[in-house]
């Protein structure tokens, strides 16, 4: 995959993130993890008016005021921490490829009772229409 193709698919993922997570201008988001994907997603979110902060480890204090959380690490401990500490009614995106299974998940206490919305997003070759939209986004933000 060329650098450009990689960028297009990351931007396409970002656009799907905005759409699927219904990102709103002015809301606060946290991105857990670094790297090119994190940077791209940050740019796409900021382009949609979202105020983004970067986190290494999601603690409950750090997540207290965000409504949108994006994990790009895929690390089981991070995902577990996100489920544990994301605030009530937060939307959580698992955008990074998973690096293993989570040991025990109490869906009652984490997702059900706190009203989390957890969405999986995968960096794959985007559909044609998405790729076109992503290319346009890249042009506009070049």
């Amino acid at each position, binding site marked *: 995959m060329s650098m450009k193709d990689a960028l297009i698919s990351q931007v396409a993922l970002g656009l*799907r993130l905005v759409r*699927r997570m*219904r990102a*709103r201008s002015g809301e606060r988001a946290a991105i857990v993890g670094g790297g090119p994907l994190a940077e791209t997603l940050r740019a796409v979110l900021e382009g949609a008016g979202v105020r983004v902060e970067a986190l290494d480890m999601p603690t409950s204090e750090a997540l207290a005021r965000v*409504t949108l959380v994006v994990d790009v690490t*895929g690390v089981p401990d991070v*995902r577990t921490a996100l489920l544990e500490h994301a605030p*009530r*009614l937060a939307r959580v995106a*698992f955008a990074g*490829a*998973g690096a293993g*299974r*989570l*040991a*025990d*998940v*109490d*869906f*009652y206490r*984490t*997702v*059900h*009772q*706190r*009203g*989390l*919305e*957890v*969405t*999986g*997003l*995968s960096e794959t070759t985007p559909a044609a229409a998405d790729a076109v939209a992503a290319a346009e986004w890249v042009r506009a933000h070049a």
Partner: protein
Amino acid sequence: MELARIPPSVRPHLQDRLVRSVTSRAKSFARGGRMWAGTEVYWPQPGVADVGILEVAAPGPGEVLIQTDFTAVSPGTERAFLNFVSGVVAKFPLRPGYSGAGTVVQVGRGVTHVGPGARVACTETVPHASLAVVRAGRVFPIPTAASAADAAFLQLAIIAQYGLRRGRVGRGERVVVVGAGLIAQLAARIARAWGAKGVAVVASSSAKRSISLASGADQFVDLGRDPGALDRLRADVVVEVTGSPDALEAAARAAAPEGRIVLLGSTRGLNRGVDFDALLRDRELSLVGAHISTLTDDRPTPEDTTYREEAHEALGLLVGGRLRIDSLITDVVNPLDAAVFYRRLCRGDQDIVGALLDWGKLDDERRCRRSFALLPPRDMLRKGRAYDQDEGPPSLLTTPPRWLVEGLDALPSGGGVLRFGLIGCGGMGARHAAAIRSAPNTELVATMDADGNLARDLAAGAFHTSRLEELLARPDVDAVLIATPNHVHDVVGIQAARAGKHVVMEKPMAQNLVRAESLLAACRASDVALSVGYCFRYAPEVRAARRIVERGLLGRLLSVQLTCYFDKPPAYYGSGRTGRTHSDWRSSREKSGGGVMIMNMSHQLDQIRFILGQDVMRVTSAVAGTLDCPQGVEVEDAIAAQVEFPGGAVGSLFGTCFARGLGNQVEIRILGEAGSLILDPPARFFTLRGGEGVSAGRWYGFGPMPKVDVHATYLAWFAAAVLEGRRPEIAGEDGIAVQAWMDAIYEAADTGRSTLVSLPAEPQMAASAAER
């Protein structure tokens, strides 16, 4: 009282009552001292439901007091809590409840949107009780076109609707509901009402197929039959309502790419080793938690709704039948039957989908009454004891309610005297002579026995004769008491009837049904009263037992067990019990009609009829004869019968007259769906039904029973009935019924076949005069 003397199992129960009583009193003093009292269902411990008195203070500012018509049961959640399954956090005693519908009784300060008399649905803090104090923000007027029964489900409808809201179900989207319980059914129906397309209900069996298709789902999927169906569903929104950790993967399989899975069921237990990539990420699914606690009066984001909006929308769906709940209602329960209902629920009865407690079934006193802040209701202070299924009857039985013991020794109070002639002056004759003399309204004016000496013995100066015609010719004899051997009962009785004498017949009525019927016909033709001497109906325990059954404390009858041990003296077949004369009729089947059953057990058969108010429908039986009495005894000495009642109950009736070393003992045990009644000492009963002055889950003793001379009491009530022109309580028809049972049992023993009891359709058991 020393704390140490209170059994540990009772302590939380008492503490709970005390705390609640003190708190509500303190509140009510602050609000002018007025309180209200009603009835509530509560769970003293896991697995047990009881009915108790509820006291609430008048509504405070922003509160509304509601008298409920119905409260809705959420079978899944209540079952999980009552069974205290792992994952449930609860502290017993527990007061379950979700929502209800009823009428506003009183509103607190600042409440303007409803007033007294308004029909409302109420949610959130509504217990299963006849009264509820609810904050005004959770009280919603019911639209005129909606029924209170449907509106009582409001909270459950909101829960289902909120699940769809969280899943952002849109018009034309495909919705799959995993699970087929109440919330699942509501979700399917609301999804349809919202315009979802191709709503499917997915379940692990076909049990709820028809209820699902009734007015909700377009498709029903039984995973047991078609496990591959999940992958074909490709739903935009999957609503997971089972709460089973394992169901999550199934829910994900049913979703189309980019689909939303709503976690609406409360997951009980952990999911082990979750691979989120396979579960969500590969197909970019969303997993959305939907718990009612996140629906509030605030609007966290512009796309969210408020509780109030959801409530109004749900109530609006009830109008015009867009959401039909009535076809989901499987049980409308009298709250006094809560213990029985919740045991069904506990056991996992899958027939229960939508259940309502119907508080309108209670009388006004139990449902809603004013109470005073100073004193708790007296019945609240009654000594309580929580029910532990593993314990047998406690050694200390709770004191019985007053209705059980009141007036058990009542005698008639009317004037007049009925003058008796006694026919047959053997062993029983002697007892009857004494009874006629001791009853307040009967007089012994003549005696007769073929053995003139026996007649003279009992006459004690009155007229006596060895000739029946002489006695029957006497104008001062109003009625005769016939205590002859069985085989002449009908002959003598018919003669007496023709002579215009009222007839009291020693039991059995005759040696068989055919002869008994001819006696009844003769008495009817001569228009004289006829009674058969089943006098043990006047035994206080028997009358008390009937009261328990009549008040429904045993619920639906399931089984009856009768065991009779009699130990007869060797002289019994030769000269009767007293040995005053030679007689051998008892050993002849033709003369006596039979052995221990017709001679002795017939009393108990009548008692069972009397207590249950039912006659046996079909019987099988076997008999055994005397082993150590070779001189030609033709009748049975032991008999075992299995009987069926028309209501579906079964009985086992056993008797023997050779119970060596056991003396005379009778056991009658009557077991129903809701309780047990044991008539051998100490007589006691247990009920899962509250009300009627008893609490569910306790053993009650009968207490000290009055001493009653059953023979004299029986004669007194007979005499009163005749003098007042009424049918006697124990009429000829009762004698016929017992005879019909016995004929069938003997026939079944003779033929070895299951035999129907041939009962005349007509006789109804007479209302008991002594009970009035």
